[in-house]
């Protein structure tokens, strides 16, 4: 008998209590800071959050007892903090985003539970490799269908169904990871072994370039037709990383990076909206409110928010985060930076870091290639998404719109993120579960069985 992982469900429960303290404490702090009193509905609100978390925990205990104990508390803390910050912005704006976000969180947790209950083994998903891929492409194309697609803030990534609007790209992300993982597990040998060596780098064969070229074209298509820089970057980066992990060949990264650079340069030359993003990134203060226009207004207000927050922040209610347009969605990090300070920002980044680290650890210990690839892909979704959006808001890279998983307002993203966590827990449960013991075989009996003497009548 080798090493067996402990279940650690008690640890998960303890961490969940801490996460709830973040969520409920944040809500109370918002009430105290903005209105000078603890919100009267704190019991109902806290009770609801606690019920969701305890429910999720019980289901994990029952159907995925060996799953990683840290993932659920981390996302619970992030989601709770996000709700508190959105609630604070609501109080300033008179909006009710927090209430809707809580509803979406409930839907997310229900889907989380559903995923864990229905999907008892993640390897089943490998059967749906091409179905998932096709479905993802259909979902990505949906916003381009006339009458169904919506253009919001210049990006054509929404569809409206009755009273609801939805970003199909968020679901497509998950499906793409499944499709990539399934495809790469089947074809990794061909992709890895064929090719020639140029200057110490193994370059892939020309005919194997097919899938990467296809993915590159899809990413460019998203950029051109949907004007969604962030998703385009995310999908291509995701594919590239999974390809590298599957083949273990850095040559793919080099080819991919060159293609990305080519595509980015081309996009900068050809498209005005890409050029604007780069210019405002390089010279934000010139495009703030001067003669050159106000294209960087949002970015610079966000930067001023970070500056105003300083090390420890102004505290809930004492900043002015609603100056930043879309502070509750893409720019929620600016609101956190202003009212909770650099301390709050670093804390949130560390939570995301832990989330990604636990996901990659799951990939490392997973026993099957499909699980490894899927976990890596899901970790990459979080890591790349956080890097792209937080990097954009803090002016590390040009600003591109993406949601900050779990924190920022947006139903599609929140629901998809909860499903991702369910998938990670499932893979992790499979990976940490003890290897099933084989029945001991009675060798004599077996030997006797194999050499039975048959008498032949004469």
């Amino acid at each position, binding site marked *: 008998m080798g090493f067996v992982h402990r279940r650690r469900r008690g640890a998960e429960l303890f961490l969940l209590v801490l996460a709830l303290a973040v969520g409920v404490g944040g809500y109370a702090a918002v009430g105290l800071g903005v209105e000078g009193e603890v919100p009267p509905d704190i019991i109902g609100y806290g009770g609801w959050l606690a019920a969701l978390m305890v429910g999720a925990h019980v289901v994990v205990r029952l159907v995925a007892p060996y799953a990683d104990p840290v993932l659920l508390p981390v996302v619970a803390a992030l989601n709770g903090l996000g709700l508190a910050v959105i609630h604070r912005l609501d109080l300033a704006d008179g909006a009710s985003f927090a209430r809707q976000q809580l509803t979406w969180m409930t839907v997310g947790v229900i889907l989380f539970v559903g995923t864990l209950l229905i999907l008892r083994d993640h390897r089943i998903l490998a059967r749906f490799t091409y179905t998932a891929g096709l479905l993802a492409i259909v979902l990505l194309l949906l916003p381009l269908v006339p009458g169904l697609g919506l253009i919001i803030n210049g990006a054509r990534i929404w569809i409206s169904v009755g009273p609801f609007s939805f970003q199909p790209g968020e679901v497509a992300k998950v499906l793409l990871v499944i499709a990539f993982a399934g495809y790469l597990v089947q074809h990794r040998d061909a992709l890895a072994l064929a090719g020639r060596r140029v200057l110490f780098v193994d370059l892939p064969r020309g005919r194997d370039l097919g899938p990467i070229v296809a993915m590159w074209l899809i990413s460019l298509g998203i950029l051109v037709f949907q004007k969604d820089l962030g998703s385009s970057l995310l999908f291509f980066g995701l594919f590239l990383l999974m390809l590298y*992990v599957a083949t273990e060949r850095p040559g793919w990264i080099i080819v991919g990076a060159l293609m990305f650079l080519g595509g980015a340069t081309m996009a900068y030359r050809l498209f005005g909206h890409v050029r604007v993003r780069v210019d405002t990134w390089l010279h934000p*203060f010139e495009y703030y*409110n001067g003669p050159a226009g106000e294209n960087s207004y949002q970015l610079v207000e966000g930067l001023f928010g970070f*500056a105003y927050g300083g*090390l420890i922040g102004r505290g809930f209610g004492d900043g002015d985060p609603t100056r930043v347009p879309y502070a509750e969605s893409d720019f929620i990090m600016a609101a956190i930076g202003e009212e909770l300070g*650099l301390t709050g*920002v670093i804390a949130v980044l560390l939570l995301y870091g832990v989330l990604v680290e636990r996901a990659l650890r799951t990939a490392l210990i997973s026993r099957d290639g499909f699980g*490894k690839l899927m976990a890596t892909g899901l*970790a990459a979704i979080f890591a790349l998404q956080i890097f792209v959006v937080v*990097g954009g808001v803090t002016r590390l890279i040009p600003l591109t719109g993406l949601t900050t998983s779990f924190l920022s307002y947006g139903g599609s993203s929140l629901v998809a993120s909860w499903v991702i966590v369910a998938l990670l827990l499932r893979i992790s449960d499979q990976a940490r579960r003890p290897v099933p013991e084989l029945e001991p075989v009675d060798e004599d009996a077996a030997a006797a069985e194999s050499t039975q003497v048959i008498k032949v009548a004469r």
Partner: protein
Amino acid sequence: MNKPIRTVSIFFLLLFLALMATATNNGFVQSSSRNDRPENRRVKEAAYSSQRGAILVGRTPIAESDKVDDEYKYLRSYTSPFLYAPVTGYFSFGSSTGIESSQNQVLSGDDPRLFIGSLIDLLGNKPPSGGSVQLTLDPDAQRAAFDGLAALGDDVEGSVVAIEPSTGKILAMVSLPTFDPNNLATHDFGARDETYQRLLQDDSEPLVNRAIQKRLFPGSTFKIVTAAAALESGQYDGPDDIVPGGPTFQLPQTTGDSGLVDNEGRDCPTDGLTLRKAMEQSCNTTFAQLAIDVGSEEMLRQAEKFGFNSDYLEDLDGQVRSAFPAELTPPEVGQAGFGQFEVQATPLQMAMVAGAIANDGVVMRPYIVDEVQQADFDAQQTEPEELSRAISEDTARTLTEVLVSTVDEGTAEPAQIDGVEVAGKTGTAQRGVAGAAPYGWFVSFAPAGDADVAVAVMIEDAPGQEIAGGRLGGPIAKAVMEAILQ
């Protein structure tokens, strides 16, 4: 597949480290420079909508923040606006002057000295509030100075400064014309801009604090400095030493009327007279010759010891330097000796000259912020500071005696106070423009032996009045001194 997964982990680690580094740059490294950017309305609005501390004279607030029901929450209001406007300045959206500007750190509560108080506010979950600034001004002296100057007419332009010689405390600081800072602090920005433009374009410069921001020829009051230089040179050492005189004096290297100094009919005998007499009669011919004897270099040194050509006022912004030029030719030094040519002084500077003589020759750094206070915590008192020793104690004693005679017997008679020994000197400075009225000056201190107050009065323009330093300035100086001595 584990090796590439580990590589990917390290790659993600680097991404997160880059994010944290950028966040640190935004929230810490660049924090204060971005807060100070002129286009950053967030910080300006926050500053504008916070409860600033009060500016106090005695126990009375002369500027405070009143709670109002609009988006900026607090409105700055000034009681006695015209009386104190040159000192308090105004606090407007995005701009401020005077104490409002120079003491902004304290008033807004950001000053490190208020750290403990701010911390207690933070822990007590109270909104942060600013500290108060207690001024050194004496309300009675300020009122006496203002009323005296204002009585000269509606369009008077001038200034009065009084200081406490032994400490440098500014006891009165008046400048006319003045303005109503309430009209600039208003939340009605349209009306504010209109008022501001009108004040800015007004030729009488109501926004200028003449006490520290306007330098003019000091005229005969500068003879005190010339006499100090002559005494310090060692050529004379008592009030009754004989100095050169004469009804007229032709400046060296000149011919004709332009280089001819006269005494406007005052009695200055050709064969010399005592220093006491020369000051009493304000003999231009005497002080031109004394300055030439002392020389350009020594005159400059003496003037600079009194504070000319330097910045010394630290707690109020915008002090201009009083000027005494270097490397003057003999005829220029001669003119400089009675406060003409390019010699220019602010009223505060002339009060400091008088104060130095009253303080046994030591110039104290002038200051106007007496105390920084916050709610219930210990006040931080400003410590008086010696700026320089301008003259020896002997010279100070001699000059005091001479200036007392000038009040008792000479041109400075209007400043006489019953039962108190007053030292003083008048000044009437030509503008150097033909036909234009002169500037009137008056400096004095009292009681002469151990002075509690030194005053400088400057009258730049008083339409309808014949300007002569003694006649107009003397009574104002007297009223201010009486307000302090009572």
